């Protein structure tokens, strides 16, 4: 097969007041038609800039300064802007990360797709042709209820449906190449699975090439044929996916695998890549990864390694790749592990159960919904419904579920950041739901929260020292010594310089900001911390640092965590116990090993089957159960109206009683309960 897209020595430059930098530096790769080519890397490594260069849609400050981009024999860089416009949509289409931002909120889906169809067709076309084409595109992307969807606005659709509409628009001109820039990052795992399957199917039907840009190795393993790993604007390794996942050659690629959390590493620290991606504005002499590499030698500092071919389909940019490949497998390998084993309380079974620190009993949290002329309350949104939980001192409870299932609301209700509608939250013997105002400070001191977005969780106008002092001052924590000493001590605890206290949040990277957010929570010596998706906004290597820090702090201070995440691998690594939430209810809970090892509830099974695994050890659940319930996961969900099981509409095992009766909690074993009529 010939190459459809050929990129050679592509170089893009950004001019900033502080100097020039090259986000894409002499990049070469090629994609054959019908192939899925994955471009992988951490944020800021130049993946998206590469995609935008191919579309010639770079932002104003950036220019392509050299190289060649050839699509099906046409050099895209030599085209005029109007000729390029003819290429976009018709020969190369693009879909972006957030379908909510890419669709125009005031136009119906049908109109937006019709617009794409019209701009892709050469001359005037009949109205019914456009309509038929729109309908056929919607059928191609397997949009549920296409007749209804064409008349709907983006806000009426779910995230997965919006992404389907986006794909339909990108396909309107029957492109030869589809660029998918993180197409599933904003979606839930079950929806992600469907979108990936859809892309695969469309590709086969149309013999289309896909350039998939992602940070998720699991996604790559799932769909890609070929992979290129980018680091600091360069490709450092390229290979077929099969070979790559058997044995990555570049030290960076190997580290990426090791920083993925999985159950097998539960009692170990995750491997972290020290430091951060280098500043691109400097002049590089040697290897760009040298400062973070464990294997670096004198030569690495002096000479930039070239992309060396190791076999005909494989290249690696490392002088010593042969030496670094010591293990034949990427499975955790003793020779490469740092051997740091955490001293933490081992598996729960062997120990006397610790006293429960937190007990949630029949908790309900409803949001009122207003409507009508006088904004009267017309109903409620049941965010949390009849949730009961117990968390023992020093343990971690993982709370998993798709977005909108109420896990964050539950976390905030536990902390009384939201007032529960009914039920009890018993913390250390006091009922937080009915807590008196005078007891509030002492509760606030004992229970804290860490948020998802380290950029939104720190006030940009306040210096770090003041951020950290806020809780201490507000809750009047008594401690020996000066407040400033305490702040410095806190910073030291999470590995930050004491000078950080006079700086503002924007001067720190995402990972450092998350450390600051953790420090803030710790400043009042809490015993319980609710971690609300603390790593989902971070890169894999930074995620590993934060997870390690959280576990280290837990063992040092006997902290109890409620760990909320949609990322099951992370929860599996962190949690002693797991609770799976679906539409406000807990459907299954128990010891992590038991729940994830033999999931009972159909929803848990679906969730686990949908998680893309980068390698077998990460595989969470038997692929055979795959796709059973997936078909329905995109449907609009009734907002908990039916009397029966909330999962009823998506469940393939549903029986008559499921629609009538709310399932009650049943014991699977001592450490495992499930709410399902099947058991």
């Amino acid at each position, binding site marked *: 097969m010939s190459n459809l897209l050929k990129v050679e020595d592509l170089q893009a430059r950004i001019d900033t007041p502080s100097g020039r930098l090259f986000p894409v530096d002499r990049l070469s790769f090629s994609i054959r038609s019908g192939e899925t080519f994955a471009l992988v890397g951490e944020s800021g490594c130049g993946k998206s800039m590469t995609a935008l260069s191919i579309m010639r849609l770079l932002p104003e400050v950036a220019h392509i300064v050299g190289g060649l981009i050839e699509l099906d024999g046409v050099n895209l860089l030599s085209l005029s802007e109007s000729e390029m416009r003819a290429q976009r949509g018709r020969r190369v289409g693009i879909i972006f990360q957030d379908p909510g931002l890419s669709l125009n909120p005031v136009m119906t889906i049908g109109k937006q797709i019709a617009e794409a169809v019209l701009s892709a067709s050469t001359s005037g076309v009949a109205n019914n042709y456009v309509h038929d084409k729109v309908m056929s595109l919607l059928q191609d992307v397997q949009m549920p209820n296409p007749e209804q969807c064409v008349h709907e606005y983006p806000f009426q659709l779910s995230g997965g449906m919006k992404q389907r509409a986006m794909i339909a628009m990108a396909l309107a001109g029957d492109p030869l190449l589809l660029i998918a820039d993180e197409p599933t990052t904003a979606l839930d795992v079950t929806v992600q699975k469907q979108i990936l399957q859809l892309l695969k199917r469309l590709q086969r039907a149309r013999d289309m090439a896909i350039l998939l840009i992602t940070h998720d190795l699991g996604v790559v393993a799932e769909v890609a044929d070929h992979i290129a790993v980018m680091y600091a604007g360069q490709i450092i390794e390229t290979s077929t996916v099969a070979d790559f996942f058997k044995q990555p050659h570049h030290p960076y690629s190997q580290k990426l695998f090791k920083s993925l959390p999985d159950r097998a590493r539960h009692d170990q620290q995750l491997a972290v890549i020290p430091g951060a991606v280098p500043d691109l504005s400097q002049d590089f002499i040697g290897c760009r990864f040298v400062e973070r590499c464990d294997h670096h030698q004198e030569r690495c500092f002096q000479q930039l390694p070239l992309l060396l071919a190791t076999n005909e389909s494989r290249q690696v940019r490392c002088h010593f790749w042969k030496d670094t490949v010591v293990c034949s497998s990427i499975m955790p390998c003793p020779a490469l592990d740092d051997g740091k084993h955490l001293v933490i309380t081992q598996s729960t079974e062997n120990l006397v159960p610790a006293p429960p620190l937190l007990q949630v009993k029949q908790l309900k949290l409803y949001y009122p919904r207003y409507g009508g002329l006088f904004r009267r309350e017309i109903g409620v949104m049941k965010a949390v419904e009849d949730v009961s939980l117990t968390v023992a001192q020093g343990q971690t409870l993982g709370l998993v579920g798709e977005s909108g299932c109420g896990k964050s609301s539950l976390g905030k209700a536990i*902390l009384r*950041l939201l007032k529960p509608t009914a039920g009890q939250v018993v913390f250390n013997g006091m009922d937080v739901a009915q807590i008196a105002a005078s007891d509030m400070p002492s509760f606030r001191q004992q229970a804290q*929260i860490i*948020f998802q977005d380290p950029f939104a*969780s720190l*006030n940009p106008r*306040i210096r770090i020292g003041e951020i950290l002092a*806020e809780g201490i001052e507000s809750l009047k924590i008594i401690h020996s010594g000066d407040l400033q000493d305490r702040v410095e001590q806190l910073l030291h605890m999470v590995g930050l310089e004491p000078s950080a206290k*006079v700086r503002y949040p924007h001067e720190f990277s995402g990972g450092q900001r998350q450390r600051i957010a953790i420090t803030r929570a710790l400043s*009042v010596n809490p015993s319980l911390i609710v971690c609300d998706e603390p790593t989902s906004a971070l890169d894999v290597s930074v995620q590993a640092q934060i997870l390690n820090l959280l576990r280290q702090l837990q063992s040092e201070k006997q902290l109890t965590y409620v760990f909320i995440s949609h990322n099951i691998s992370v929860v599996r690594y962190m949690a002693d116990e797991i609770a799976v939430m679906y539409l406000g209810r807990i459907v299954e809970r128990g010891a992590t090993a038991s729940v994830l090892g033999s999931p009972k509830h159909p929803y848990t099974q679906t969730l686990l089957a949908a998680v893309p695994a980068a390698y077998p050890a990460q595989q969470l659940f038997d692929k055979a159960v795959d796709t059973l319930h997936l078909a329905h996961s995109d449907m609009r969900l009734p907002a908990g109206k039916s009397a029966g099981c909330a999962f009823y509409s998506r469940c393939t095992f549903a029986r008559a009683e499921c629609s009538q009766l709310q399932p009650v909690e049943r014991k699977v074993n001592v450490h495992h309960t499930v709410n399902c009529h099947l058991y």
Partner: protein
Amino acid sequence: MTHYRLDFLWSDYLVWSIVSAVIIYAWYVQKYPHLLSPWKLVVCNSRGMAAATVFLVFIVISCADSIHYRSELSVQDGKSVYSTELNSALDLILEPIKKNREKTYSAPFATHLFSKETVKNELGHDQRIFPRLRFGGTHLADPVADWLPDIFKKSLSGILMACVIWLFGFLVVLSVMSRLKKTPIKKLYASIWSDSSMSAFRAVCITIAIMLLIGVPLVYLASYYHVFGTDKVGQDVCYQALKSIRTGMVIGLLATIVTLPIAVLLGVMAGYLRGWVDDCIQYIYTTLSSIPSVLLIAASVLMMQVYIENHTELFPSAESRADIRLLALCVILGMTSWTGLCRLLRGESMRLRELEYIQAAHAFAVSDWRIMMQHILPNVMHIVIMALVMDFSGLVLAEAVLSYVGVGVDTSMMSFGTMINSARLEMAREPMVWWSLSVAFTFMLLLVLAANIFADAVREAFDPRLKAKVP
């Protein structure tokens, strides 16, 4: 030697308390490096510093105009009798041009009146001629022939004087700086014109040079001519314009100070607390903003005028009456113009209250009041500063409009509005009396523009997100 008695008006006290508040703030800021660092950025912004220099001149003029006194006329039975006329330090400086009143209109630099008059000539015949001015250009023997060379000569010597003053000042500053920084003068001089870190200093020097080049010749000429002409009653327009600056400043500053706490407090409270507080505040500002503002202001001003006239005993002099009227106008303008800013702040606070750092503060049981002050207020400050400057300009302009309509400041008080108002009829005249309006326009433009550019520099320096982008 005449004796003086300082006699401050209410607005004088307010002006000086604002000035002292700024000085106290500056003294407080220089003690803390983290508060000082954004101001250092302001000082390094050449555009902002040039505007600040111009603005400073306006401030100095208004301050000089805010020191009022009465001069002693005579002493009776050991008691001094003071003049009924209230003068300010500015009047003292401008005494010559204040006193030199012509009969009616005269154009800038004119030697003759603007309109013809019937005068008797030496022979006793009635003649319709443009009579010579009483003060403007009286030193010229032959006004037709000598006029242009005289103006040229005087401007030239004015420019020369300006150069001398500027050079002298520059050298003094340079030598002081070289002593402080311990660098030789030559090196310092070279660095000023080449070093980019000195660009703000350079901009200030250039601004001062331009102001001197325009100002000094005008001041020199002003003692021979009416440089901006005279108005209907022969009053020098230059004097009027300079006196109007204080009125504009007082209205701009005081009205924004009245606006500020109402708008900020209500806006942040409505956005952050929501619920019935939000409903109440929204109700108030929608009602207020649906009443035509000029109507509302006119009604309030007229009510206040009636009150002043019925309580003359409270306001002994005409000046104090005019002054109270000015203050009342500030309060009225402030009370009616907070709705726009309030609405903006409510929207922004609603966005901010959902952010995670606010929730983190809740998790520390930080009080609502503290959250509003510590977390929300600093994050809406850029809106406040922008809106304030817009308001300052808007209020200076609103005063002009209101005085034009006749519900603004007292007619005896000089302001840009009254200047425009008195000039409006003459616009229809042929040849046109253009100078009153143009002078008022130019002064207002300079004042508002300087304020806008300076505030822009302040906003840039205080926005940490902007700093992040441009390291």
